Protein backbone atom coordinates (compact mmCIF):
# COMPACT_ATOMS: atom_id res chain seq x y z
CA UNK A 1 0.00 0.00 0.00
CA UNK A 2 1.13 3.56 -0.69
CA UNK A 3 2.92 5.07 2.35
CA UNK A 4 0.91 8.28 2.16
CA UNK A 5 -2.37 6.36 2.28
CA UNK A 6 -1.01 4.42 5.27
CA UNK A 7 -0.06 7.71 6.94
CA UNK A 8 -3.67 8.91 6.54
CA UNK A 9 -4.90 5.64 8.01
CA UNK A 10 -2.50 6.04 10.95
CA UNK A 11 -3.81 9.58 11.48
CA UNK A 12 -7.44 8.41 11.50
CA UNK A 13 -6.78 5.43 13.77
CA UNK A 14 -4.42 7.39 16.02
CA UNK A 15 -6.66 10.41 16.60
CA UNK A 16 -9.68 8.09 16.92
CA UNK A 17 -7.84 5.98 19.49
CA UNK A 18 -6.66 8.97 21.53
CA UNK A 19 -10.13 10.51 21.61
CA UNK A 20 -11.67 7.16 22.53
CA UNK A 21 -9.20 6.71 25.39
CA UNK A 22 -9.68 10.31 26.55
CA UNK A 23 -13.48 10.00 26.46
CA UNK A 24 -13.48 6.72 28.40
CA UNK A 25 -11.08 8.14 31.02
CA UNK A 26 -13.20 11.29 31.28
CA UNK A 27 -16.37 9.28 31.87
CA UNK A 28 -14.57 7.01 34.36
CA UNK A 29 -13.41 10.04 36.38
CA UNK A 30 -16.91 11.53 36.36
CA UNK A 31 -18.33 8.25 37.67
CA UNK A 32 -15.56 8.04 40.29
CA UNK A 33 -16.30 11.59 41.40
CA UNK A 34 -20.00 10.78 41.76
CA UNK A 35 -19.33 7.57 43.68
CA UNK A 36 -16.81 9.08 46.07
CA UNK A 37 -18.45 12.45 46.80
Amino acid at each position, binding site marked *: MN*TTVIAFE*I*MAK*GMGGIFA*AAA*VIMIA*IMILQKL*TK
Partner: protein
Amino acid sequence: MDFLLEGIRAVTWQQLVMYLVGVGLIWLAVKKEYEPSLLLPMGFGAILVNLPYSGVIDQVVQGKIPAAGIIEWLYQTGIESSEMMPILLFIGIGAMIDFGPLLSQPFYFLFGAAAQFGIFVAILIACLMGFDLKDAASIGIIGAADGPTAILVSQVLGSAYVGPIAVAAYSYMALVPIIQPFAIRLVTTKKERSIHMSYNPAGVSRTTRIAFPIVVSMIVGFISPQSVALVGFLMFGNLLRECGVLNSLSKTAQDDLANLITLLLGITISFSMKADWFVNLQTIMIMCLGLVAFVFDTIGGVLFAKLVNVILALLRKPPVNPMIGGCGISAFPMSSRVVQKLAAEEEKGNIILMQAAGTNVAGQVASVIAGGLVISIVSQYL
Protein backbone atom coordinates in the same frame (compact mmCIF):
# COMPACT_ATOMS: atom_id res chain seq x y z
CA MET B 1 55.90 11.91 18.38
CA ASP B 2 53.67 11.07 15.47
CA PHE B 3 51.23 9.17 17.68
CA LEU B 4 50.36 12.41 19.53
CA LEU B 5 49.02 13.89 16.31
CA GLU B 6 47.12 10.76 15.28
CA GLY B 7 43.85 11.96 16.85
CA ILE B 8 43.87 15.45 15.38
CA ARG B 9 44.77 14.11 11.92
CA ALA B 10 41.78 11.76 12.05
CA VAL B 11 39.21 14.51 12.67
CA THR B 12 36.65 14.76 9.88
CA TRP B 13 34.68 17.88 8.93
CA GLN B 14 31.51 16.13 10.11
CA GLN B 15 33.06 15.73 13.55
CA LEU B 16 33.96 19.42 13.56
CA VAL B 17 30.29 20.17 12.87
CA MET B 18 29.34 17.97 15.82
CA TYR B 19 31.72 19.88 18.13
CA LEU B 20 29.86 23.03 17.11
CA VAL B 21 26.51 21.30 17.69
CA GLY B 22 27.74 20.17 21.13
CA VAL B 23 28.94 23.65 22.07
CA GLY B 24 25.66 25.08 20.71
CA LEU B 25 23.60 22.77 22.93
CA ILE B 26 25.73 23.64 25.97
CA TRP B 27 25.31 27.35 25.13
CA LEU B 28 21.52 26.95 24.89
CA ALA B 29 21.53 25.13 28.23
CA VAL B 30 23.78 27.56 30.10
CA LYS B 31 23.04 30.91 28.52
CA LYS B 32 19.39 30.50 27.58
CA GLU B 33 18.52 27.89 30.24
CA TYR B 34 16.66 25.81 27.61
CA GLU B 35 16.12 22.35 29.15
CA PRO B 36 19.63 22.49 30.70
CA SER B 37 19.35 19.13 32.46
CA LEU B 38 19.11 17.38 29.09
CA LEU B 39 20.74 19.67 26.57
CA LEU B 40 23.96 20.14 28.57
CA PRO B 41 24.73 16.40 28.97
CA MET B 42 23.72 15.82 25.34
CA GLY B 43 25.97 18.63 24.14
CA PHE B 44 28.94 17.45 26.14
CA GLY B 45 28.32 13.83 25.11
CA ALA B 46 28.14 14.92 21.46
CA ILE B 47 31.71 16.18 21.79
CA LEU B 48 32.91 13.06 23.62
CA VAL B 49 31.54 10.55 21.12
CA ASN B 50 32.93 12.47 18.17
CA LEU B 51 36.54 12.63 19.29
CA PRO B 52 38.51 10.31 16.99
CA TYR B 53 39.11 6.86 18.56
CA SER B 54 37.02 8.05 21.53
CA GLY B 55 37.20 5.75 24.55
CA VAL B 56 33.52 6.35 25.36
CA ILE B 57 32.43 4.22 22.40
CA ASP B 58 33.55 0.69 21.57
CA GLN B 59 36.90 0.62 19.78
CA VAL B 60 39.40 -1.90 18.52
CA VAL B 61 42.74 -0.71 19.89
CA GLN B 62 45.74 -1.22 17.57
CA GLY B 63 43.50 -3.14 15.22
CA LYS B 64 43.07 -6.17 17.50
CA ILE B 65 42.19 -5.41 21.16
CA PRO B 66 38.46 -4.73 21.69
CA ALA B 67 37.81 -1.97 24.23
CA ALA B 68 34.31 -1.27 25.56
CA GLY B 69 33.10 2.32 25.66
CA ILE B 70 30.99 3.54 28.58
CA ILE B 71 28.53 5.69 26.60
CA GLU B 72 27.93 2.91 24.06
CA TRP B 73 27.38 0.45 26.92
CA LEU B 74 24.95 2.83 28.64
CA TYR B 75 23.06 3.24 25.36
CA GLN B 76 22.86 -0.48 24.66
CA THR B 77 21.85 -1.34 28.22
CA GLY B 78 19.70 1.60 29.20
CA ILE B 79 17.94 2.41 25.94
CA GLU B 80 18.47 -0.07 23.12
CA SER B 81 17.86 -3.35 24.91
CA SER B 82 15.08 -2.38 27.33
CA GLU B 83 14.22 1.34 27.04
CA MET B 84 14.86 1.25 30.78
CA MET B 85 15.98 4.86 31.18
CA PRO B 86 13.04 6.70 29.58
CA ILE B 87 10.57 4.33 31.23
CA LEU B 88 12.07 4.75 34.72
CA LEU B 89 12.03 8.50 34.20
CA PHE B 90 8.25 8.26 33.89
CA ILE B 91 8.00 7.15 37.54
CA GLY B 92 9.60 10.42 38.56
CA ILE B 93 7.45 12.46 36.19
CA GLY B 94 4.28 10.75 37.44
CA ALA B 95 5.26 11.49 41.03
CA MET B 96 5.73 15.16 40.16
CA ILE B 97 2.33 15.71 38.51
CA ASP B 98 -0.67 16.98 40.41
CA PHE B 99 -3.66 15.82 38.36
CA GLY B 100 -6.03 17.82 40.60
CA PRO B 101 -6.89 20.57 38.06
CA LEU B 102 -7.73 17.88 35.50
CA LEU B 103 -9.67 15.64 37.87
CA SER B 104 -11.85 18.57 38.89
CA GLN B 105 -12.63 19.26 35.21
CA PRO B 106 -12.27 15.92 33.39
CA PHE B 107 -13.71 17.43 30.22
CA TYR B 108 -10.23 18.84 29.54
CA PHE B 109 -9.03 15.35 28.66
CA LEU B 110 -10.52 15.90 25.21
CA PHE B 111 -8.35 18.98 24.67
CA GLY B 112 -5.31 16.88 25.53
CA ALA B 113 -6.37 14.39 22.85
CA ALA B 114 -6.92 17.09 20.20
CA ALA B 115 -3.50 18.61 20.77
CA GLN B 116 -1.79 15.42 19.59
CA PHE B 117 -2.83 16.27 16.04
CA GLY B 118 0.65 17.52 15.13
CA ILE B 119 2.09 14.02 15.60
CA PHE B 120 0.03 12.67 12.74
CA VAL B 121 0.49 15.71 10.49
CA ALA B 122 4.26 15.30 10.90
CA ILE B 123 4.03 11.55 10.14
CA LEU B 124 2.10 12.34 6.96
CA ILE B 125 4.54 15.01 5.80
CA ALA B 126 7.54 12.81 6.68
CA CYS B 127 6.07 10.05 4.49
CA LEU B 128 5.59 12.54 1.67
CA MET B 129 9.22 13.62 2.08
CA GLY B 130 10.37 10.04 1.52
CA PHE B 131 11.05 8.75 5.03
CA ASP B 132 10.04 5.13 5.52
CA LEU B 133 7.13 4.43 7.85
CA LYS B 134 9.07 3.59 11.03
CA ASP B 135 11.22 6.70 10.69
CA ALA B 136 8.23 8.90 9.78
CA ALA B 137 6.32 7.66 12.84
CA SER B 138 9.35 8.23 15.06
CA ILE B 139 9.76 11.75 13.70
CA GLY B 140 6.05 12.45 14.17
CA ILE B 141 6.27 11.55 17.84
CA ILE B 142 8.41 14.66 18.40
CA GLY B 143 4.94 16.25 18.44
CA ALA B 144 4.20 14.43 21.68
CA ALA B 145 6.34 17.23 23.18
CA ASP B 146 7.71 14.63 25.53
CA GLY B 147 11.39 13.70 25.31
CA PRO B 148 11.26 10.26 26.96
CA THR B 149 8.26 9.24 24.82
CA ALA B 150 10.05 10.38 21.66
CA ILE B 151 13.18 8.41 22.58
CA LEU B 152 11.21 5.31 23.50
CA VAL B 153 8.99 5.24 20.42
CA SER B 154 11.87 5.84 18.00
CA GLN B 155 13.89 3.14 19.75
CA VAL B 156 11.06 0.57 19.78
CA LEU B 157 10.31 1.20 16.10
CA GLY B 158 14.01 0.83 15.27
CA SER B 159 14.43 4.28 13.74
CA ALA B 160 17.87 5.27 12.53
CA TYR B 161 17.31 8.83 13.78
CA VAL B 162 17.04 8.52 17.57
CA GLY B 163 19.67 11.25 18.09
CA PRO B 164 18.16 13.99 15.91
CA ILE B 165 14.68 13.11 17.19
CA ALA B 166 15.78 13.50 20.83
CA VAL B 167 17.54 16.78 20.07
CA ALA B 168 14.48 18.10 18.21
CA ALA B 169 12.06 16.99 20.95
CA TYR B 170 13.99 18.65 23.76
CA SER B 171 14.91 21.76 21.77
CA TYR B 172 11.34 22.49 20.72
CA MET B 173 10.03 21.81 24.22
CA ALA B 174 12.36 24.56 25.34
CA LEU B 175 11.12 26.80 22.52
CA VAL B 176 7.43 26.47 23.45
CA PRO B 177 7.30 30.15 24.58
CA ILE B 178 8.22 31.16 21.03
CA ILE B 179 6.39 28.50 18.97
CA GLN B 180 3.02 28.46 20.74
CA PRO B 181 2.17 32.20 20.72
CA PHE B 182 2.96 32.24 16.99
CA ALA B 183 0.73 29.22 16.28
CA ILE B 184 -2.08 30.43 18.54
CA ARG B 185 -2.15 33.87 16.89
CA LEU B 186 -2.38 32.19 13.48
CA VAL B 187 -5.78 30.67 14.29
CA THR B 188 -7.37 33.00 16.85
CA THR B 189 -8.63 36.57 16.96
CA LYS B 190 -7.85 39.07 19.71
CA LYS B 191 -11.48 38.80 20.82
CA GLU B 192 -11.18 35.02 21.21
CA ARG B 193 -7.91 35.31 23.12
CA SER B 194 -9.58 37.75 25.51
CA ILE B 195 -12.39 35.39 26.54
CA HIS B 196 -12.73 35.14 30.31
CA MET B 197 -13.44 31.82 32.00
CA SER B 198 -14.84 31.36 35.47
CA TYR B 199 -13.08 28.79 37.62
CA ASN B 200 -15.35 26.78 39.90
CA PRO B 201 -13.58 23.46 40.33
CA ALA B 202 -15.36 20.52 41.87
CA GLY B 203 -13.61 19.11 44.92
CA VAL B 204 -11.58 15.98 44.25
CA SER B 205 -11.83 13.20 46.81
CA ARG B 206 -8.75 11.31 47.97
CA THR B 207 -10.29 8.08 46.69
CA THR B 208 -10.57 9.58 43.21
CA ARG B 209 -6.95 10.71 43.31
CA ILE B 210 -5.84 7.19 44.31
CA ALA B 211 -8.17 5.41 41.89
CA PHE B 212 -7.20 7.66 38.96
CA PRO B 213 -3.77 6.11 38.18
CA ILE B 214 -5.18 2.59 38.50
CA VAL B 215 -8.20 3.29 36.29
CA VAL B 216 -6.15 5.11 33.64
CA SER B 217 -3.56 2.30 33.47
CA MET B 218 -6.29 -0.29 33.01
CA ILE B 219 -8.29 1.66 30.42
CA VAL B 220 -5.21 2.54 28.38
CA GLY B 221 -3.94 -1.01 28.74
CA PHE B 222 -7.15 -2.38 27.26
CA ILE B 223 -7.27 0.18 24.43
CA SER B 224 -3.56 0.27 23.61
CA PRO B 225 -1.52 -2.51 25.26
CA GLN B 226 1.71 -1.06 23.82
CA SER B 227 1.17 2.02 26.00
CA VAL B 228 1.28 0.05 29.24
CA ALA B 229 5.00 0.52 29.85
CA LEU B 230 4.71 4.27 29.36
CA VAL B 231 1.37 4.95 31.01
CA GLY B 232 1.84 2.27 33.67
CA PHE B 233 5.10 3.73 34.95
CA LEU B 234 3.77 7.30 34.75
CA MET B 235 0.72 6.27 36.75
CA PHE B 236 2.81 4.17 39.16
CA GLY B 237 4.73 7.33 40.02
CA ASN B 238 1.46 9.21 40.48
CA LEU B 239 0.07 6.46 42.72
CA LEU B 240 3.18 6.76 44.93
CA ARG B 241 2.40 10.48 45.21
CA GLU B 242 -1.30 10.20 45.89
CA CYS B 243 -1.51 7.14 48.13
CA GLY B 244 -0.35 9.21 51.08
CA VAL B 245 1.57 6.39 52.78
CA LEU B 246 4.74 6.37 50.66
CA ASN B 247 5.84 9.95 50.92
CA SER B 248 9.54 9.16 51.11
CA LEU B 249 9.34 6.93 48.01
CA SER B 250 7.38 9.60 46.20
CA LYS B 251 9.99 12.20 47.12
CA THR B 252 12.79 9.87 46.02
CA ALA B 253 11.05 9.31 42.67
CA GLN B 254 10.52 13.06 42.17
CA ASP B 255 14.03 14.09 43.14
CA ASP B 256 16.73 11.42 43.26
CA LEU B 257 15.41 8.97 40.67
CA ALA B 258 14.36 11.64 38.17
CA ASN B 259 17.65 13.52 38.58
CA LEU B 260 19.80 10.41 38.28
CA ILE B 261 18.03 9.15 35.16
CA THR B 262 17.98 12.61 33.59
CA LEU B 263 21.68 13.00 34.23
CA LEU B 264 22.47 9.71 32.51
CA LEU B 265 19.81 9.95 29.79
CA GLY B 266 21.29 13.05 28.18
CA ILE B 267 24.81 11.75 27.94
CA THR B 268 23.58 8.29 26.90
CA ILE B 269 21.50 9.68 24.04
CA SER B 270 24.59 11.47 22.78
CA PHE B 271 25.79 8.08 21.51
CA SER B 272 23.28 8.48 18.69
CA MET B 273 24.87 11.84 17.82
CA LYS B 274 27.92 10.37 16.14
CA ALA B 275 28.91 12.53 13.18
CA ASP B 276 28.37 9.87 10.51
CA TRP B 277 24.76 9.36 11.71
CA PHE B 278 23.94 12.96 12.55
CA VAL B 279 25.48 15.28 9.98
CA ASN B 280 23.21 14.80 7.00
CA LEU B 281 20.24 16.31 5.23
CA GLN B 282 17.81 14.08 7.12
CA THR B 283 18.72 15.77 10.42
CA ILE B 284 17.76 19.18 9.02
CA MET B 285 14.52 17.68 7.67
CA ILE B 286 13.77 16.15 11.08
CA MET B 287 14.31 19.49 12.83
CA CYS B 288 11.86 21.12 10.37
CA LEU B 289 9.31 18.33 10.84
CA GLY B 290 9.58 18.65 14.61
CA LEU B 291 8.64 22.30 14.31
CA VAL B 292 5.70 21.38 12.07
CA ALA B 293 4.55 18.85 14.69
CA PHE B 294 4.62 21.41 17.51
CA VAL B 295 2.81 24.05 15.44
CA PHE B 296 0.06 21.62 14.39
CA ASP B 297 -0.32 20.30 17.94
CA THR B 298 -1.14 23.83 19.03
CA ILE B 299 -3.37 24.51 16.03
CA GLY B 300 -5.21 21.20 16.50
CA GLY B 301 -5.90 21.95 20.15
CA VAL B 302 -7.05 25.52 19.49
CA LEU B 303 -9.32 24.53 16.59
CA PHE B 304 -10.89 21.79 18.71
CA ALA B 305 -11.57 24.36 21.44
CA LYS B 306 -13.23 26.58 18.83
CA LEU B 307 -15.39 23.65 17.76
CA VAL B 308 -16.32 23.08 21.40
CA ASN B 309 -17.33 26.76 21.57
CA VAL B 310 -19.75 26.24 18.67
CA ILE B 311 -21.39 23.41 20.61
CA LEU B 312 -21.39 25.45 23.83
CA ALA B 313 -23.07 28.34 22.00
CA LEU B 314 -25.82 25.98 20.81
CA LEU B 315 -26.28 24.83 24.41
CA ARG B 316 -26.30 28.50 25.53
CA LYS B 317 -23.31 27.97 27.78
CA PRO B 318 -20.34 30.32 28.21
CA PRO B 319 -17.44 29.70 25.81
CA VAL B 320 -13.94 28.54 26.68
CA ASN B 321 -10.89 30.58 25.78
CA PRO B 322 -9.66 28.62 22.71
CA MET B 323 -6.06 29.16 23.75
CA ILE B 324 -6.44 26.52 26.47
CA GLY B 325 -6.80 23.95 23.68
CA GLY B 326 -3.28 24.82 22.56
CA CYS B 327 -1.73 23.78 25.85
CA GLY B 328 -2.97 20.20 25.59
CA ILE B 329 0.64 19.23 24.93
CA SER B 330 3.04 17.56 27.29
CA ALA B 331 5.33 20.52 27.98
CA PHE B 332 4.17 21.15 31.55
CA PRO B 333 3.92 23.72 33.09
CA MET B 334 5.55 25.83 30.39
CA SER B 335 2.65 25.65 27.97
CA SER B 336 0.01 26.70 30.50
CA ARG B 337 2.20 29.60 31.62
CA VAL B 338 2.63 30.73 28.01
CA VAL B 339 -1.13 30.69 27.45
CA GLN B 340 -1.78 32.57 30.71
CA LYS B 341 0.78 35.20 29.68
CA LEU B 342 -0.92 35.59 26.29
CA ALA B 343 -4.33 35.95 27.93
CA ALA B 344 -3.01 38.62 30.30
CA GLU B 345 -1.35 40.45 27.41
CA GLU B 346 -4.63 40.59 25.50
CA GLU B 347 -6.59 41.75 28.51
CA LYS B 348 -5.06 42.70 31.80
CA GLY B 349 -6.38 40.65 34.69
CA ASN B 350 -7.65 37.76 32.55
CA ILE B 351 -6.72 34.63 34.49
CA ILE B 352 -7.10 31.23 32.81
CA LEU B 353 -4.08 29.55 34.39
CA MET B 354 -5.91 26.76 36.21
CA GLN B 355 -7.95 25.80 33.13
CA ALA B 356 -4.75 25.85 31.10
CA ALA B 357 -2.98 23.71 33.70
CA GLY B 358 -5.83 21.17 33.57
CA THR B 359 -5.47 20.91 29.80
CA ASN B 360 -1.70 20.77 30.10
CA VAL B 361 -1.70 17.73 32.43
CA ALA B 362 -4.30 16.11 30.15
CA GLY B 363 -1.71 16.58 27.41
CA GLN B 364 0.85 14.72 29.48
CA VAL B 365 -1.36 11.64 29.68
CA ALA B 366 -2.58 11.98 26.09
CA SER B 367 0.95 12.24 24.70
CA VAL B 368 1.98 9.03 26.40
CA ILE B 369 -1.16 7.29 25.10
CA ALA B 370 -0.35 8.67 21.64
CA GLY B 371 3.15 7.19 21.86
CA GLY B 372 1.77 3.75 22.63
CA LEU B 373 -0.88 4.01 19.93
CA VAL B 374 1.70 5.02 17.33
CA ILE B 375 3.78 1.94 18.21
CA SER B 376 0.68 -0.32 18.06
CA ILE B 377 -0.69 1.06 14.82
CA VAL B 378 2.60 1.43 12.95
CA SER B 379 3.69 -2.10 13.96
CA GLN B 380 0.69 -3.44 12.02
CA TYR B 381 2.10 -2.00 8.80
CA LEU B 382 5.75 -2.99 9.24
